[in-house]
């Protein structure tokens, strides 16, 4: 173990200590918008079933994602309006990637 002068902040105290790679805070802003539709597994977008500004009801299929050798129907969790579509048909998406924003 090399000696790294890194620091970890715990309760306003800055400790001089080693911080392994996977614990390094990326400083990203994490927001959980209930209207966000994210890919729960990596896969490929087969078809996008909605358009921008379309009104959608809970349970409507908004995207068909090919993953695990199956076509997965991704449904809207609640009623709302599609505000943004961030992917296109044929795109490969990573796990957790934001695909559709709803209001």
């Amino acid at each position, binding site marked *: 173990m090399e000696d790294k002068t890194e620091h970890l902040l715990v*309760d306003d*105290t800055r*400790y001089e*200590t080693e911080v392994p790679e996977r614990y390094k805070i990326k400083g990203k802003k994490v927001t959980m918008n209930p209207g966000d539709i994210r890919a729960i*597994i990596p896969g490929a977008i087969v078809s996008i079933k909605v358009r921008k500004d379309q009104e959608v009801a809970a349970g409507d299929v908004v995207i068909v994602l090919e993953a695990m050798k199956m076509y997965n129907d991704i449904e809207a969790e609640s009623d709302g309006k599609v505000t943004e579509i961030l992917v296109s048909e044929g795109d490969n998406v990573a796990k957790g990637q934001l695909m559709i924003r709803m209001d």
Partner: protein
Amino acid sequence: MTIKIKINDFLSRASRLLKGGGEASIQRQTKSGKLNARERIDYILDQYSFFETDLFVEHSAKDFGMESKKLAGDGVVTGFGKVDGRAVAVFAQDFTVAGGSLGKAHAGKIVKIMDSAGDMGIPLIGINDSGGARIQEGVDSLCGYGDIFFRNTQLSGVVPQISLILGPCAGGAVYSPALTDFVFVVDRISNMFITGPQVIKSVIGEEIEAEELGGAMTHAATTGNAHFYAKTEAEAFEQIRELLSYLPANSTENPPVSKKADPPLNPLGHPDSRKVLPNDRKKSYNVKEIIRGIVDSSSFFEIQKHFARNIVTGFGRLAGKPVGIIANQPKVLAGVLDVDASDKASRFIRFCDSFNIPLLTLVDTPGYLPGVDQEHAGIIRHGAKLLYAYSEATVPKFTVVMRKAYGGAYIAMCSRHLGANMVIAWPTAEIAVMGPEGAANIIFKSEISESDDPEKTRKEKVKEYEDKFSNPYVAASRGYVDMIIEPNKTRDALIKALELAKIKSQPAYTRRHGNIPL
């Protein structure tokens, strides 16, 4: 048939079976950098102590051409032997025979040796080196695995179960080692995963090499599935022999007392107790040096060295008696508790409690690791495991609070409240709700913000809090700490405490078993 012919016939059959898959297969195994099943058994056990069983077992499968296939010992070697004069049961899968694949008879041999280990009350060592289920035997293979997993569970806490991964161990097969107490992996030889790189590539589209996905270091450092990592098979065999020297044969026995009980080479705090810790509480040090300064010389044997390095677990001896050691490591992540550290420590505590091994906990932790990742990974339910494991343990529990013991982490690190038999604190201990900076910022928030010179006020308030609370005396005044001693008296105090200690009898509640958060 004369006796002479019968004996010659037996000798020729036995000699053929002892060659496993045959000379050519053995050569291939050696060329691939691996020892074969019988060589491994010879290395682990005391010389000439191997006592083989079921050499003549054969499969009775008929499908897919199996009827004409002769498989020596059905691909696994089983028997008994000794390690340092103490009996063990052992099985070693033979990769030279049908790739060590598991069929019904193969599994039957393993099940039989497991049952024997349980009946005799001796440790079980399993050497895994197998391509997996013997597809030709279909559901019978699955039955075989199921029988093994069931027995791993029945034997859990009855006898120590040790697994060496000396080849592939994939798919369902890998659950047997996962159910055992200790898993040994060897660089470039061990491979464990549920779904391999080819399946992952075709189904999910992610690309990864076998070594990175499920190789030795991956399991030693990232997944936490392995407890010991070795560069060579020979090193792994040494590690197993050393591990067994700390363990009783079964749960009814006490851990073996070593005649070799020399004091540490660099005793802690000798000649000067002031050099043990850095003056600045924000600076770190290596807790393993403290451990080595307390336990018998050369007796510290670390477990899961590469995983969750912010907590240290391992065995040591005090006047020859084995103890299980858990210590926060300030050198990594300031010694905070997090998901992995909680899992690592809890499993180790419960192993020690199963086998009558007293627990020694060394505390220097500022609390739990803050962050969204930890919260979303479930630090709540993982952290709860540590509270459960310590509370549940009825083996003698000794705690030494060396420096920081803040908040919930103070409670979790085997505090008096969780049933510690003896809590010792050093004069440098700080048993408090949190560090002085954090506490002062909360308690004196309005005073600091309304002040003409907030920074000056903050510094004053931090010092005020520090003087009053960052010490062991508040806790000691309530009897939460049993004694305060200097670091250089720790070893003697612990040896005395160990002499007085006894395993607690179980409480009077009737229950089938508790429900540890998982």
